[in-house]
Protein backbone atom coordinates (compact mmCIF):
# COMPACT_ATOMS: atom_id res chain seq x y z
CA UNK A 1 0.00 0.00 0.00
CA UNK A 2 1.64 3.22 -1.12
CA UNK A 3 1.57 6.58 0.67
CA UNK A 4 -1.02 8.06 -1.68
CA UNK A 5 -3.21 4.97 -2.00
CA UNK A 6 -6.48 4.30 -0.17
CA UNK A 7 -7.28 0.94 1.33
CA UNK A 8 -10.14 0.28 -1.07
CA UNK A 9 -7.86 0.84 -4.10
CA UNK A 10 -5.12 -1.27 -2.59
CA UNK A 11 -7.54 -4.16 -2.08
CA UNK A 12 -8.88 -3.76 -5.64
CA UNK A 13 -5.38 -4.10 -7.05
CA UNK A 14 -4.23 -6.85 -4.71
CA UNK A 15 -3.42 -10.00 -6.68
CA UNK A 16 -1.77 -12.24 -4.07
CA UNK A 17 -3.67 -14.10 -1.33
CA UNK A 18 -4.44 -11.54 1.36
CA UNK A 19 -4.75 -13.87 4.35
CA UNK A 20 -2.86 -16.75 5.92
CA UNK A 21 -5.05 -19.17 7.84
CA UNK A 22 -4.49 -19.39 11.57
CA UNK A 23 -6.95 -22.21 12.25
CA UNK A 24 -5.65 -25.73 11.67
CA UNK A 25 -7.13 -27.81 8.82
CA UNK A 26 -8.91 -24.84 7.28
CA UNK A 27 -8.74 -23.09 3.96
CA UNK A 28 -11.38 -20.39 4.05
CA UNK A 29 -13.23 -20.00 0.77
CA UNK A 30 -14.20 -16.78 -0.93
CA UNK A 31 -17.92 -17.35 -1.32
CA UNK A 32 -20.77 -18.55 0.90
CA UNK A 33 -19.05 -17.47 4.06
CA UNK A 34 -19.96 -15.18 6.92
CA UNK A 35 -17.00 -13.21 8.13
CA UNK A 36 -16.04 -10.50 10.52
CA UNK A 37 -13.01 -8.49 9.44
CA UNK A 38 -10.93 -6.19 11.59
CA UNK A 39 -8.42 -3.71 10.15
CA UNK A 40 -5.94 -1.82 12.29
CA UNK A 41 -3.32 0.86 11.74
CA UNK A 42 -4.99 2.56 8.78
CA UNK A 43 -6.29 6.11 9.41
CA UNK A 44 -9.93 6.77 8.62
CA UNK A 45 -8.93 9.28 5.95
CA UNK A 46 -7.19 6.51 3.97
CA UNK A 47 -10.00 3.94 3.96
CA UNK A 48 -11.75 5.26 0.87
CA UNK A 49 -11.62 8.39 -1.27
CA UNK A 50 -14.06 11.02 -0.14
CA UNK A 51 -17.21 11.31 -2.18
CA UNK A 52 -16.41 14.96 -2.85
CA UNK A 53 -13.21 13.89 -4.63
CA UNK A 54 -15.22 11.64 -6.91
CA UNK A 55 -17.61 14.47 -7.73
CA UNK A 56 -14.73 16.86 -8.49
CA UNK A 57 -13.06 14.24 -10.67
CA UNK A 58 -16.30 13.55 -12.51
CA UNK A 59 -17.00 17.23 -13.14
CA UNK A 60 -13.45 17.80 -14.37
Amino acid at each position, binding site marked *: *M*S*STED*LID*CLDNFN*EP*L*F*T*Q*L*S*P*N*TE*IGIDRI*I*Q*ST*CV*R*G*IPQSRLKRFLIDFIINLTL
Partner: protein
Amino acid sequence: MYSRYHPKSINLIREFEHSSTENKFDTFTNGQLVWKQGYFEEEYSDNIRQYLEECNNCQGFQVIFDCTDGFSGLTSKCLEMLEDEYHKSIFAIPLISPKVLNFLNSDGPMSDSIKTVNIALSYCNLIEHSSIFIPLSTMARGWRTIGNKREFPDILYDENNLYHTSAILATYLDTISLRYRIRNPTQSNYLSGFCTDINNYGRKLAGAALGKLLIA
Protein backbone atom coordinates in the same frame (compact mmCIF):
# COMPACT_ATOMS: atom_id res chain seq x y z
CA MET B 1 11.25 -12.18 32.79
CA TYR B 2 7.95 -12.70 34.57
CA SER B 3 4.31 -11.80 34.13
CA ARG B 4 2.67 -9.37 36.50
CA TYR B 5 -0.64 -11.16 36.90
CA HIS B 6 -2.98 -10.30 39.72
CA PRO B 7 -2.75 -13.06 42.38
CA LYS B 8 -6.51 -13.63 42.08
CA SER B 9 -6.14 -14.46 38.40
CA ILE B 10 -3.89 -17.45 39.05
CA ASN B 11 -5.47 -20.81 39.86
CA LEU B 12 -2.90 -23.51 40.47
CA ILE B 13 -3.48 -27.18 39.79
CA ARG B 14 -1.59 -28.71 42.68
CA GLU B 15 -1.72 -32.34 41.54
CA PHE B 16 0.43 -31.81 38.45
CA GLU B 17 3.85 -30.35 37.91
CA HIS B 18 5.06 -28.88 34.63
CA SER B 19 7.74 -30.92 32.89
CA SER B 20 9.62 -30.06 29.73
CA THR B 21 10.10 -33.71 28.76
CA GLU B 22 6.63 -35.24 29.18
CA ASN B 23 3.11 -34.04 29.86
CA LYS B 24 1.60 -35.53 33.01
CA PHE B 25 -1.75 -33.73 32.70
CA ASP B 26 -2.95 -36.01 29.94
CA THR B 27 -6.64 -36.76 29.38
CA PHE B 28 -9.93 -34.85 29.11
CA THR B 29 -11.31 -36.97 31.98
CA ASN B 30 -8.29 -36.17 34.15
CA GLY B 31 -8.99 -32.46 33.67
CA GLN B 32 -12.64 -32.88 34.63
CA LEU B 33 -11.59 -34.77 37.77
CA VAL B 34 -9.44 -31.83 38.88
CA TRP B 35 -12.58 -29.68 38.78
CA LYS B 36 -14.80 -32.19 40.56
CA GLN B 37 -12.42 -33.31 43.28
CA GLY B 38 -11.47 -30.91 45.99
CA TYR B 39 -10.47 -27.27 46.00
CA PHE B 40 -10.33 -26.12 42.35
CA GLU B 41 -14.01 -25.47 41.63
CA GLU B 42 -14.52 -23.38 44.75
CA GLU B 43 -11.32 -21.34 44.38
CA TYR B 44 -11.86 -20.66 40.67
CA SER B 45 -15.53 -19.73 41.08
CA ASP B 46 -14.76 -17.39 44.00
CA ASN B 47 -11.96 -15.65 42.11
CA ILE B 48 -14.14 -15.10 39.03
CA ARG B 49 -17.00 -13.78 41.16
CA GLN B 50 -14.72 -11.30 42.94
CA TYR B 51 -13.42 -10.02 39.61
CA LEU B 52 -16.92 -9.62 38.19
CA GLU B 53 -18.08 -7.69 41.23
CA GLU B 54 -15.44 -5.07 40.33
CA CYS B 55 -16.66 -4.85 36.71
CA ASN B 56 -18.95 -2.04 35.61
CA ASN B 57 -20.02 -3.72 32.42
CA CYS B 58 -18.99 -7.30 31.81
CA GLN B 59 -19.52 -8.17 28.13
CA GLY B 60 -18.63 -11.83 28.45
CA PHE B 61 -15.64 -14.12 28.62
CA GLN B 62 -12.71 -14.90 26.36
CA VAL B 63 -11.43 -18.36 27.20
CA ILE B 64 -8.05 -19.36 25.76
CA PHE B 65 -6.85 -22.87 26.53
CA ASP B 66 -4.80 -25.88 25.39
CA CYS B 67 -7.27 -28.36 23.91
CA THR B 68 -4.88 -31.28 23.45
CA ASP B 69 -4.24 -32.24 27.09
CA GLY B 70 -6.01 -32.30 30.46
CA PHE B 71 -6.78 -28.60 30.23
CA SER B 72 -9.47 -29.51 27.65
CA GLY B 73 -11.52 -31.29 30.33
CA LEU B 74 -10.83 -28.69 33.01
CA THR B 75 -11.90 -25.89 30.63
CA SER B 76 -15.10 -27.75 29.74
CA LYS B 77 -16.13 -27.61 33.41
CA CYS B 78 -15.07 -23.95 33.69
CA LEU B 79 -17.24 -23.09 30.66
CA GLU B 80 -20.22 -24.95 32.14
CA MET B 81 -19.86 -22.91 35.33
CA LEU B 82 -19.52 -19.60 33.46
CA GLU B 83 -22.56 -20.36 31.32
CA ASP B 84 -24.73 -21.46 34.27
CA GLU B 85 -23.71 -18.63 36.60
CA TYR B 86 -23.42 -15.59 34.36
CA HIS B 87 -25.34 -16.15 31.06
CA LYS B 88 -22.87 -14.00 29.14
CA SER B 89 -21.24 -14.49 25.74
CA ILE B 90 -18.33 -16.92 25.77
CA PHE B 91 -15.72 -16.60 23.05
CA ALA B 92 -13.55 -19.72 23.31
CA ILE B 93 -10.17 -20.12 21.65
CA PRO B 94 -8.82 -23.70 21.78
CA LEU B 95 -5.09 -23.74 21.05
CA ILE B 96 -3.10 -26.50 19.42
CA SER B 97 0.53 -26.23 20.43
CA PRO B 98 3.26 -26.55 17.79
CA LYS B 99 5.37 -28.36 20.40
CA VAL B 100 4.32 -31.95 20.92
CA LEU B 101 5.26 -33.72 24.16
CA ASN B 102 4.42 -37.35 24.83
CA PHE B 103 2.09 -38.03 27.71
CA LEU B 104 3.22 -39.89 30.83
CA ASN B 105 3.60 -43.66 30.24
CA SER B 106 2.59 -43.27 26.55
CA ASP B 107 4.63 -43.63 23.38
CA GLY B 108 4.23 -41.38 20.33
CA PRO B 109 1.25 -43.10 18.63
CA MET B 110 -0.61 -43.49 21.95
CA SER B 111 0.00 -39.81 22.80
CA ASP B 112 -1.32 -38.82 19.35
CA SER B 113 -4.47 -40.88 19.96
CA ILE B 114 -5.06 -39.33 23.39
CA LYS B 115 -4.52 -35.88 21.88
CA THR B 116 -7.05 -36.55 19.11
CA VAL B 117 -9.69 -37.72 21.59
CA ASN B 118 -9.04 -34.66 23.77
CA ILE B 119 -9.56 -32.34 20.78
CA ALA B 120 -12.75 -34.16 19.71
CA LEU B 121 -14.27 -34.07 23.20
CA SER B 122 -13.25 -30.44 23.57
CA TYR B 123 -14.91 -29.37 20.29
CA CYS B 124 -18.04 -31.35 21.19
CA ASN B 125 -18.21 -29.56 24.53
CA LEU B 126 -17.55 -26.13 23.00
CA ILE B 127 -20.52 -26.51 20.65
CA GLU B 128 -22.74 -26.80 23.72
CA HIS B 129 -21.20 -24.29 26.10
CA SER B 130 -19.61 -21.48 24.06
CA SER B 131 -21.15 -18.71 21.94
CA ILE B 132 -18.45 -19.14 19.32
CA PHE B 133 -15.10 -20.92 19.16
CA ILE B 134 -12.10 -20.38 16.90
CA PRO B 135 -9.28 -22.96 17.04
CA LEU B 136 -5.86 -21.33 16.65
CA SER B 137 -2.49 -22.74 15.73
CA THR B 138 0.50 -21.69 13.68
CA MET B 139 0.63 -25.25 12.31
CA ALA B 140 -1.36 -26.30 9.24
CA ARG B 141 -3.01 -29.35 10.81
CA GLY B 142 -4.50 -29.92 14.23
CA TRP B 143 -5.70 -33.43 14.57
CA ARG B 144 -3.53 -36.55 14.89
CA THR B 145 -0.55 -34.74 13.42
CA ILE B 146 0.20 -31.03 13.35
CA GLY B 147 1.66 -30.81 9.83
CA ASN B 148 3.97 -28.05 8.61
CA LYS B 149 4.14 -24.52 9.91
CA ARG B 150 2.09 -21.76 8.28
CA GLU B 151 4.09 -19.26 6.27
CA PHE B 152 3.29 -15.59 6.80
CA PRO B 153 4.58 -12.95 4.40
CA ASP B 154 7.20 -10.69 6.03
CA ILE B 155 7.35 -12.77 9.23
CA LEU B 156 10.32 -14.99 10.00
CA TYR B 157 9.66 -17.20 13.01
CA ASP B 158 10.82 -20.42 14.63
CA GLU B 159 7.85 -22.82 14.83
CA ASN B 160 9.33 -24.48 17.94
CA ASN B 161 9.71 -21.24 19.85
CA LEU B 162 6.51 -20.63 21.82
CA TYR B 163 7.43 -16.95 22.30
CA HIS B 164 7.44 -16.53 18.51
CA THR B 165 4.26 -18.50 17.78
CA SER B 166 2.30 -17.00 20.66
CA ALA B 167 3.25 -13.50 19.45
CA ILE B 168 1.56 -14.27 16.10
CA LEU B 169 -1.57 -15.64 17.81
CA ALA B 170 -1.60 -12.65 20.18
CA THR B 171 -1.45 -10.26 17.21
CA TYR B 172 -4.53 -11.93 15.78
CA LEU B 173 -6.44 -11.84 19.09
CA ASP B 174 -5.41 -8.26 19.80
CA THR B 175 -6.72 -7.18 16.39
CA ILE B 176 -9.99 -9.12 16.30
CA SER B 177 -10.91 -8.07 19.83
CA LEU B 178 -10.46 -4.34 19.02
CA ARG B 179 -14.07 -4.26 17.93
CA TYR B 180 -15.44 -4.91 21.41
CA ARG B 181 -12.58 -3.34 23.37
CA ILE B 182 -13.01 0.21 22.06
CA ARG B 183 -14.35 2.80 24.48
CA ASN B 184 -18.11 3.32 24.24
CA PRO B 185 -18.82 0.78 21.48
CA THR B 186 -22.13 0.77 19.64
CA GLN B 187 -24.53 -2.03 20.52
CA SER B 188 -23.42 -4.28 17.65
CA ASN B 189 -19.80 -3.90 18.70
CA TYR B 190 -20.10 -5.66 22.03
CA LEU B 191 -18.77 -9.21 22.40
CA SER B 192 -22.33 -10.53 22.09
CA GLY B 193 -22.69 -8.69 18.75
CA PHE B 194 -19.43 -10.13 17.50
CA CYS B 195 -20.58 -13.65 18.40
CA THR B 196 -24.08 -13.37 16.95
CA ASP B 197 -22.73 -11.88 13.70
CA ILE B 198 -20.82 -15.07 13.04
CA ASN B 199 -22.78 -17.87 14.71
CA ASN B 200 -25.82 -17.59 12.47
CA TYR B 201 -27.82 -20.79 12.04
CA GLY B 202 -26.30 -22.14 15.27
CA ARG B 203 -22.87 -22.66 13.78
CA LYS B 204 -20.38 -22.19 16.57
CA LEU B 205 -17.10 -23.12 14.88
CA ALA B 206 -15.26 -20.42 12.91
CA GLY B 207 -11.88 -20.19 11.21
CA ALA B 208 -9.27 -17.48 11.68
CA ALA B 209 -6.98 -15.76 9.19
CA LEU B 210 -4.35 -13.08 9.51
CA GLY B 211 -3.31 -10.66 6.76
CA LYS B 212 -0.82 -7.86 6.49
CA LEU B 213 -0.75 -4.77 4.28
CA LEU B 214 2.52 -2.94 4.40
CA ILE B 215 1.88 0.80 4.44
CA ALA B 216 4.56 2.92 2.80
